[in-house]
């Protein structure tokens, strides 16, 4: 009889009645063949694997993480509430010790959604992992969390949300941004002044195969995780590094994903992208679930899998090694670099332009953060879109020091509704969300 080594939970929500539009990659059909494979393999019957029905997140859960403009309802659909809810369900089941590990096989995805949300970018509206994490922090009092994003696209939304948070280690391993959407995620993106070093990017060259991915996990990701000692490890489990994916250029396989899962031993995995809905997803998902559960996955492979054809060029292996060495050296020297780069003033600013490819919106942000050695720092975002919607968003982080809390309230108090369409305050210590 087949039995799982680790009590493993699954939320399977394929949203068979939701699509961005009928021929969009993010459409009803996406998880259809995955469902067929999971059902036919009898995975849900395996002793020790439990399927949960997703809870819905609340607007409060979303506002704990995002500033939705003008409000939550305008930028989400029911499917987003369920998808984030599925992640939350798994997170709670892990924290309640109902399961040791869990996988939220849900759609739509979320890792391109940033702190301020004007619409949909990279098929994402709200960041489902972040909403789960912030809920778990509030409900269970956990602090140190690591997110390993193995989607082929840089997890720029998650990076934005945790850019200033020293308690969250965000590692994104993805196809080089010079060759793929969203065009970011370079080695030198290492986090804001208060959280330098806890953002890590490992951009891999196109046509990286199993060897390169697993090398990066073993030699770079695992040692950094061991150093950071998170209470919880989350895997943003995108599946578009697959050799058959239609919108990326990598050579990863179902076996590779299963081994990656086995090595990473994440507490929670959340599905992100992956659009080879027939050739990859059924096998990759089966492999990930078995690996999480600690069941032999050696017979899982794609019908057309040929490891010889997928072998990576020697030059790629060399490049990956160099990238890994550099990432590790930044990690080891992060405190020193942080000191060196520390801005002089009490505040620092950055200006950014953010493009919402799915909805065709361009946003301009002026971000101001209080330099603080005691907490993540009070954050002020002045955001305006090309259609003229201007808002002010003030974020006071979870473990904010007194000075940062006061700064946040001062910013919120001083802002005038004549200048901004909406003014928001996200007070994490009090778990409050104010709008004026």
């Amino acid at each position, binding site marked *: 009889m087949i039995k799982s080594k680790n009590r493993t939970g699954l939320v399977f929500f394929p949203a068979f009645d939701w699509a961005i539009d009928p021929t969009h990659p993010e459409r009803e059909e996406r998880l259809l063949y995955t469902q067929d494979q999971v059902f*036919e*393999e009898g995975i849900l019957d395996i002793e020790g694997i439990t399927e949960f029905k997703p809870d819905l997140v609340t607007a409060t859960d979303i506002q704990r993480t995002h500033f939705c403009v003008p409000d939550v309802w305008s930028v989400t659909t029911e499917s987003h509430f369920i998808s984030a809810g599925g992640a939350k369900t798994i997170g709670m089941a892990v924290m309640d010790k109902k399961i040791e590990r869990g996988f939220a096989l849900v759609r739509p995805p979320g890792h391109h959604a940033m702190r301020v949300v004007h619409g949909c970018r990279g098929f994402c509206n709200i960041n489902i992992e972040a909403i789960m994490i912030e809920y778990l922090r509030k409900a269970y009092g956990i602090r140190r969390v690591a997110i390993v994003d193995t989607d082929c696209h840089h997890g720029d939304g998650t990076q934005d949300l945790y850019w200033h948070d020293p308690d969250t280690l965000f590692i994104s391993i993805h196809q080089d941004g010079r060759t793929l959407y969203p065009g970011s995620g370079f080695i030198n993106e290492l986090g804001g002044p208060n959280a330098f070093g806890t953002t890590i990017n490992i951009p891999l060259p196109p046509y990286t195969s199993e060897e390169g991915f697993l090398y990066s996990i073993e030699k770079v990701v695992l040692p950094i995780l061991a150093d950071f000692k998170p209470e919880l490890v989350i895997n943003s489990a995108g599946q578009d590094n697959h050799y058959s994916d239609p919108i990326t250029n990598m050579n990863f396989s179902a076996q590779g994903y299963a081994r990656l899962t086995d090595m990473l031993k994440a507490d929670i995995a959340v599905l992100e992208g992956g659009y080879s809905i027939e050739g990859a997803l059924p096998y990759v998902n089966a492999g990930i679930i078995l690996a999480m559960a600690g069941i032999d996955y050696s017979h899982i492979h794609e019908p057309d899998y040929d490891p010889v054809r997928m072998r990576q060029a020697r030059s790629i292996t060399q490049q990956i090694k160099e990238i890994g060495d550099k990432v590790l050296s930044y990690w080891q020297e992060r405190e020193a670099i942080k000191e060196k780069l520390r801005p002089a003033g009490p505040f620092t600013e950055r200006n950014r332009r953010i493009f919402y490819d799915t909805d065709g919106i361009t946003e301009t942000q002026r971000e101001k953060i209080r330099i603080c050695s005691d907490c993540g720092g009070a954050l002020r975002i002045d955001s305006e879109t090309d259609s003229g919607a201007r808002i002010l968003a003030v974020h006071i982080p979870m473990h904010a020091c007194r000075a940062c809390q006061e700064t946040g309230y001062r910013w919120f108090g001083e802002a005038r509704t004549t200048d901004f369409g909406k003014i928001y305050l996200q007070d994490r210590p009090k778990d409050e969300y104010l709008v004026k």
Partner: protein
Amino acid sequence: MIIGLDVGGTHTDVVLLDQENLVNQIKVRTDESDLFQSVLEGLSRITEGVDPKRIERVVLSTTLTTNAIVQGAMPNVGMIVSSGPGIDPKFFRTNEHYYPVAGSIDHRGRRIEPLDPDEIKAVGKNLAGAGVRYVGVVGKFSSRNPSHELEIRKLLRDQFEHIFLGHRISGNLNFPRRIATTFLNAAVYPVHKEFFTAVKRSLDRHGMKVPIHILKADGGTMSLDYSIDFPGQTILSGPAASVMGACAFAPEDRDVIVLDIGGTTTDMAVLMGGVPLIDPFGIELSGYKTLIRSLNTRSIGLGGDSVVRVIQGQLTIGPDRLGPAMGYGGSAPTPTDALIALDIVTDAEKARSVAGLEPLALTLGISIAETAERIFNLACDRILSESAKMVAQINAKPVYTIHELHEGYQVDPKTIMVLGGPAPYFAKRLAQNSSYEVRTVPRWKVANAIGAALARATCEVTLFADTERGILTAPEEKFKKNVGRDFSRDEAVEKAFELLKEKALVKGEANAQDLEMELLEDLQFNMVRGFDTTGKNIRIKAQVKPGLIHGYGAVAKKLSEEAER
């Protein structure tokens, strides 16, 4: 007139009904070592003095196949399993002669890797050499494309008495369950065939040349002829008989919990608006998870004869039974003894029951009457909490669309219907200890046999269309057709109902008036490759709802009125 017969572990219950009356009801003791004798005795006693020509229908529910599986009394069978990539098929081994072979079909029913005929022939030789006569053949995704299973049968058919094919057993996707179910069908085939051939012969001799129907676990019937090829469908029909018995008397305007309180177990089920819920997967028995359609029932080891103990100062009941209650000559105290000690049950030896409860009372340091009270309450409270758990489980069932999640009907029963030996006593106490309205099922001692008698033929059809590949197929029904790109969901639904009707009439020998059909699954996906819609993927599943045959409503009504008087 109709005969309903339900073989239980202790008694075989038999009823004779006509359109207006319960003409007769009897109980005979079940002889586990000779079920045939028990069935014959039941049938001959119920028909004493009745003109055999007046019998129109016989429905039987037996424990024959269930016992064979539970006791492991099964002949050597051979299993040939073609898996392809996925979980290693060695994990699904069912028996000694189990052979994984080459060959692979994918989720859309495309052939990925061919079979190796030489390998199959070699396996056939091994099996034949080992004296195997019954063989099960199962392929992964064979419910999408059965060609490999058919090919294997073709290669081996001359060497074996019967070859069972996985795709004929269910249209559902679940390879391990398909393997287990095919194995069980092959394994109980000889005992089932021999038994029912003998029953038929015997009825013929008594001048009853009537259609014989066999009750299935889903609360429906099938014809005897059909059952020979699908004997696995008869597993665990007992609990279904009881649920169908309650169905006959259940209100249709609300949800109801059905409790069958027996000697060893209490079986639970839920009726939604008078219709029992089907288990979404299939029966589990003796470690075998199957694709055998069944009613959603839950069984707990707590019945009238369960052993009562005090463990670490706490009263416990069951899950074992050591024989009848002490008041009826048994050796260990039971909830029934508590009822006897409380003078609720009066036809037993009270002194023996009291003596049985005494050591428990001493350990607990309370009076015998209070001990009996506590036992009775504990039994009721556990039954109540377990039924609440069952309802919660039904409501927690995952759904896969936003629509379902939103519209998700939550079962919320406020009524309990009780049947089984001690039904009326328990009904009263269950009502006192909860906020449920509790009713006793009329003729609670034989309601299970009434349920069997009145159950209608049920069946299910799964239809799959992939218009990109131009196919429409229901392998379970041996149906396959080429269709064009413009084939629609409406046409698929029409075809599914057509196949279902045919199946019910032919294989179930159903009455056309009883074809209450409904869709269980109705999904349609646009298949997009690149930026073009290249086809549609349509999945339709339809069933004949479990329910009662037409024309016997008057009997149920009469019995209900009688019970209220």
